[in-house]
């Protein structure tokens, strides 16, 4: 419990720091935000209008008071409006976030469906052809640029065969190609990891002991080796959840999939600073929360760390 409380306090401090950095960022961004906001449909604006809005946004106050107002808005979940679409940033982020989460989950499923069978077979039939094939898969999979794999898939399934849509979002069919691309790219790492973890497990003394007691190989593998080998895999998995979410950025751009990754890349290219700032805040808070969650889970799952932590204190 002490540990969790400590992490939460750290999180609060982090939020404060992050808010300060974001505030500085938007202040340093080139261009006058007031003019950007008023600049709709090429209608010219008067000086009075600009001044009025400046007053309204407290832009004429000293910097620390501006920060205070910004902070108040930040904690009221007001992240400003997009320069381009004039919509509130937060509502845009939230409306696009489910698409990204769907893509992430679908890719996870693909990844598990590929890496668990391949990794297991590879460890069980070490140095047989299955093993060689899956190691080749892992090597090529970690060397192939994910966006290029996606391009190949589009060319094959969408253009040549015409069975799957290549872009956009809507039906379940739309998610197949993006998730397949990302899932394959991600699974290369896990095939390798699961293989080495299982091989290590198969050499442990308790496996020999179980064999001596006459327990069947199938049982040994399922209940003794496999379960224990998942611990390192889950650790790495937890650590790479964040990079999975970031991996969706390229895939979303490639497939014109309307998630938050596509949104931020468009915003960067169009210099839509409020959206970039909103994305940065959103994604950093999300990743920090994921990290804290994984940390707590891991402590719960693995008693060794929990005990060591107590000893140190």
């Amino acid at each position: 419990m002490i540990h969790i409380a400590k992490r939460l306090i750290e999180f609060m401090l982090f939020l404060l720091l992050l808010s300060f950095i974001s505030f500085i960022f938007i202040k340093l961004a080139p261009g006058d935000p007031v003019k950007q906001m008023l600049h709709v449909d090429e209608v010219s604006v008067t000086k009075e209008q600009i001044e009025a809005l400046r007053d309204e946004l407290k832009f004429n106050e000293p910097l620390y008071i501006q920060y205070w107002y910004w902070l108040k808005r930040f904690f009221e979940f007001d992240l400003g409006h997009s320069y381009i679409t004039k919509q509130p940033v937060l509502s845009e982020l939230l409306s696009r976030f489910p698409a990204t989460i769907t893509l992430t989950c679908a890719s996870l499923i693909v990844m598990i469906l590929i890496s668990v069978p391949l990794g297991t077979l590879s460890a069980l039939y070490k140095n047989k052809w299955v093993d060689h094939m899956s190691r080749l898969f892992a090597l090529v999979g970690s060397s192939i640029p994910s966006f290029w794999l996606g391009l190949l898939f589009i060319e094959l399934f969408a253009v040549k065969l015409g069975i799957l849509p290549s872009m956009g979002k809507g039906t379940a069919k739309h998610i197949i190609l993006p998730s397949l691309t990302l899932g394959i790219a991600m699974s290369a790492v896990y095939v390798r990891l699961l293989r080495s973890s299982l091989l290590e497990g198969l050499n442990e003394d308790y496996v020999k002991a179980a064999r001596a007691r006459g327990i069947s190989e199938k049982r040994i593998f399922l209940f003794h080796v496999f379960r224990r080998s998942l611990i390192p895999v889950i650790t790495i998995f937890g650590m790479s959840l964040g990079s999975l979410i970031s991996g969706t950025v390229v895939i979303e751009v490639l497939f014109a999939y309307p998630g938050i990754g596509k949104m931020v890349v468009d915003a960067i290219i169009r210099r839509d600073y409020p959206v970039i700032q909103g994305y940065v805040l959103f994604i950093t808070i999300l990743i920090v929360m994921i990290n804290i969650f994984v940390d707590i889970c891991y402590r719960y799952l693995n008693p060794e760390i929990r005990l060591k932590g107590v000893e140190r204190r």
Partner: protein
Amino acid sequence: MKIIKQMYWMCSRQLPFILFLAYLLAIVTAPLFTPHDPLEINMNERLLEPSVEHLFGTDHLGRDLFSRILAGGQVTVGTGLLVLIIVLLSGVPLGMMSGFIGGRFDRYFMRIIDSFMAFPDFIIAIVLSGILGPGMLNLIFAIVVTKWGSYVRLARSTVLSEKEKDYVLMAVVNGLSTFKLIRKHLLPHVVGNVFVLATLDFGKIILLIASLSYIGLGAQPPTPEWGAMLNESTPYFHSSPYLMVIPGIAIMSTVLISNLAGDVLRDRFDVKG
């Protein structure tokens, strides 16, 4: 310098590593042999199929793809090398210093590094190019920032584990100066480990550069960067598939070779990056 001797021995023995070095050399010298100007636009020769005159064909602006691939190799691979050199020169001394001094400085410094490393590299790259704007220089800066932490950590942990060993104690007792101690005893270990990590990382850096350039945040046209080239010629993939296939193979083979070399080195020295 035992590790350097071992490396020499290994180079004479291990094929992937030789391949990797040969590949790097080929990439760096390639622009000397480009048959055409990679930037020269010739609208009369748009989208030509591969032929003797244009080995890989031409793109939508009539530029020779073979020359662009060679020039692009220098941009992509050269940028990757530049990133690594900056990371090594700035990260390794700091990491060694942090490990050597220890104490409060070390603790706080590592705290900062840890919080940096909690974020996926792609996110940091996106955030930085969001702040600084798209472009190759900003991309280099972003990748340096993302990769920096792991080198600092590795240099630090190597120094920490070597510092405790008896031979270092002996050297200190016998009055070896701090500078000589670091140079003669600690540096060789650090250099070996860091070298392995750098080889393993190289492929990832190339992928980052190409991916970020593909989504438009890195190299800008007309720079012949492999990822940016793929982005530029997207509308023509269907009519001229070689525009898609060839730059992709260029990226993939580079990453594949460096991954192979990295695996060999890792197995040999058992370094955990």
